[in-house]
């Protein structure tokens, strides 16, 4: 279903503490992971400091249009 995250710019929406993010983040070129739960984002930042983890909802996310290769919703739709 997902050939590879290698070299990809990924946006994960509703990442929580990163239980799925940690499966692919080291392969991706860049990961932006967002969630409105500050506690989860804080935990994710501790474990994966290279991930651009933000406490924000999709509606308020500042990100250029058509700028990511993969969008992930994992248990978050």
């Amino acid at each position, binding site marked *: *279903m*997902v050939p590879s995250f290698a070299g990809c710019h990924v*946006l994960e*929406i509703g990442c*929580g503490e990163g239980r*799925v993010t940690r499966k692919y983040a080291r392969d991706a070129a860049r990961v932006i992971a967002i969630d409105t739960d500050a506690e989860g984002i804080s935990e994710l930042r501790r474990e994966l400091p290279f991930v651009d983890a933000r406490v924000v909802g*999709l*509606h308020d*996310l500042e*990100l250029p*249009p*058509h*700028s*990511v*290769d*993969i*969008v*992930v*919703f*994992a*248990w*978050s*739709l």
Partner: protein
Amino acid sequence: MVDALRRARGRLRRTGFLIDLHPTSAIAAVVVGHTIAGPLQTGSAPTRHQEATDAIASVVRERFFTQDDEMEFEFSTYADTLEELQEHILEDRRESRIGDDTMVRAQALLLNAPGVRPRVRETVSASRLLPRGH
């Protein structure tokens, strides 16, 4: 949910894709080894999961995306003890919990299964969607 999918499409490159994973509306179970101790109490979660499935179908029907791939698989969340499993579920999921009857049955099963870790087993739907009409 449909709005979130549409917004996500606006972030995707023409060559990109969207991956969605969400449990199906099938009832999740508390399992010890290969034996089902009982259903997980999930409140309105199955309704939300069905809404997610419907949202995917809607954005495909409305030609925001093409469904490129779809599959279902079993997904298990393990813990070292039943108490840890209950704690994780209470923290991680809205409304869900292991009910008292299932807790008792799972404890009895664990007594006869040393070293076995209890788990919650659910069926997860995975979809890969390609953006259309950029």
